[in-house]
């Protein structure tokens, strides 16, 4: 490479690398260091305390409970979202059938794809306000109002969706699923459309039913996208900060009585409310480790032989 080129390369890289280094990489690295201190964040004075923060974490019932809730999210959010998205994607791309040899979507599939995707472009903050209203604990909430109308719920004693310890996690899962299905539907649709049509036609001629077609042809050929979806949803389930912190009670959410606490809310409360920066950093490190473990486990668990077509 000539001299002028070096100058050009260096010139083009300087600003992006500097920004990235200062605001992303360096903070990531610092977190590990701070997690070993008793830093309160107010001043620059802190003591090295070794792994004290980590041992305290293990004894922190709230944080341990939060990990458990994250695990519940991790199990239910991807499974429900992916199953619904797969079902809809199949219906919209190959559900309509009947014309000789035709494999196509059901009528109106374009319309459905546009509508289903819409929640994806709304911010989670909008979702939080919207579902806060839907879950209102009186007849004015959409869900309670509906159930009262159907006579399933007593108007004087409606369900407190977000304050019922046994319901709050499910109420949150519903929001995430509502938000995500459309996106994964489109993702799976894109993958389905790259499957050659003659495979389906051959299956049709052989008299395969729709269920068979789906299980034996579509799903195996989609496995790569399902795997991607699984990892993405898993990472989202490890976060959940916005919804929990804004929809549930308590400082940075987590209520009632820590029944909806997730790692990110405990961390933010310790950092911004209690000012325990070092402790919060230790939580950040634990979140990183768990996220990495989750990604690796999910990738391994869903590994299949790649099918070329």
């Amino acid at each position: 490479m000539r001299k002028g080129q070096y100058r050009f390369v260096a010139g083009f890289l300087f600003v992006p690398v500097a920004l990235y280094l200062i605001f992303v990489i360096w903070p990531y690295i610092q977190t590990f260091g701070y997690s070993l201190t008793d830093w309160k964040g107010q001043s620059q004075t802190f003591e090295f305390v070794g792994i004290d923060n980590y041992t305290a974490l293990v004894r922190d019932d709230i944080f341990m409970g939060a990990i458990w809730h994250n695990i519940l999210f991790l199990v239910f959010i991807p499974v429900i979202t992916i199953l619904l998205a797969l079902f809809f994607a199949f219906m919209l791309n190959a559900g309509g059938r009947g014309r000789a040899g035709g494999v196509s979507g059901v009528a109106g599939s374009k319309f459905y794809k546009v509508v289903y995707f819409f929640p994806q472009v709304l911010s989670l903050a909008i979702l939080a306000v919207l579902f806060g209203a839907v879950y209102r604990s009186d007849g004015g909430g959409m869900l309670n109002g509906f159930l009262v109308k159907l006579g399933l719920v007593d108007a004087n004693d409606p369900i407190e969706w977000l304050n019922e310890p046994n319901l709050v996690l499910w109420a949150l899962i519903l929001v995430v699923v509502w938000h995500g299905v459309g996106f994964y539907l489109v993702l799976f649709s894109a993958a389905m459309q790259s499957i050659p049509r003659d495979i389906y036609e051959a299956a049709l001629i052989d008299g395969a039913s729709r269920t068979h077609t789906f299980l034996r042809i579509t799903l195996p050929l989609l496995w790569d996208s399902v795997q991607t979806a699984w990892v993405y949803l898993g990472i989202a389930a490890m976060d959940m900060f916005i919804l929990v912190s804004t929809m549930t009670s308590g400082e940075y959410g987590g209520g009632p009585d820590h029944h909806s606490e997730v790692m990110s809310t405990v961390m933010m409360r310790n950092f911004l409310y209690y000012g325990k920066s070092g402790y919060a950093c230790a939580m950040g490190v634990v979140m990183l480790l768990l996220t990495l473990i989750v990604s690796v486990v999910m990738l391994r668990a869903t590994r299949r032989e790649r099918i070329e077509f």
Partner: protein
Amino acid sequence: MSAPLKTTSYGDSVPTSPPPDGRPGKPDGDRGEGVVLNVFSHGFLALWALLIVLPLLWLVLSSFKTDSQIAGSAFGWPQNWSLDVFSRAWDKGIGDYFLNTVLVLAFSVPLTMLFGSMAAYVLARYQFWGNRLLYYFFVAGAMFPVFLALVPLFFMVKRLDMLNTYQGLILVYVAYSMPFTVFFMHAFFRTLPTAVFEAAILDGASHTRTFFQVMLPMAKPGLISVGIFNTLGQWNQFILPTVLMQPQSGDDPERYVLTQGLIQLQQQQGYASDLPVLFAGVTIAMIPMLVVYLSFQRQVQAGLTSATLK
């Protein structure tokens, strides 16, 4: 049907001849399963569409109701259709939050595209020592949860004296958008033909000029995808402004972005109940996204999908 082409794929563009009555034709006779499944699946598809649309419509309608109407019953029809509530919501802060968001994005999105493309271009098309290393260094950032960085990031921005400033948030947005942008544009620049590049250089264009006048225009489709992705992502960002955009002292003005402001309004609603204003605020926040989405829905869907797959 004779000799189907290998390249044909089924999908939403398939029907070669639409059924005369606009409905899917009769099942092949021997398939009773088809009818049941059709009714079932159509019902289910329509139900999900309703589940998406109804809450949103209900929320927009609620902004035309009064407080007592909202608390009373979920299904009352609004009585006064005055748009006054929207201007009230705008005055109550939504206007400021909206403008703050627009102001930040007006700088952060173009800068993200510029710096991201510059780094991606150099990494994709020039050989130099450490190239691969630098590339992985950029891409690795996408793997870590942002929570890992929050505490030190807060103090880093504080040390730079940029807490609760637009420029601080802009720089942080640009930095955190870098991994995906570099990753995506890197793949894109690699696919561009070398011949055009060589022709430009032979014609005496400098490397910088070649980038801005030849390569960047050719990468336009990729830039659009990345642009949509970053706009949506930064517009909807919540956690970074929550940590970085808080008034630092009594006379430090509030510079909340839209997502933050909505949550703020929601929390205030506990003290001074004015729910229609909150709902009107959400409606105002929703409309630009709805318009962008409906006008570019193909690109938005394609952009976000390829963002995940690659």
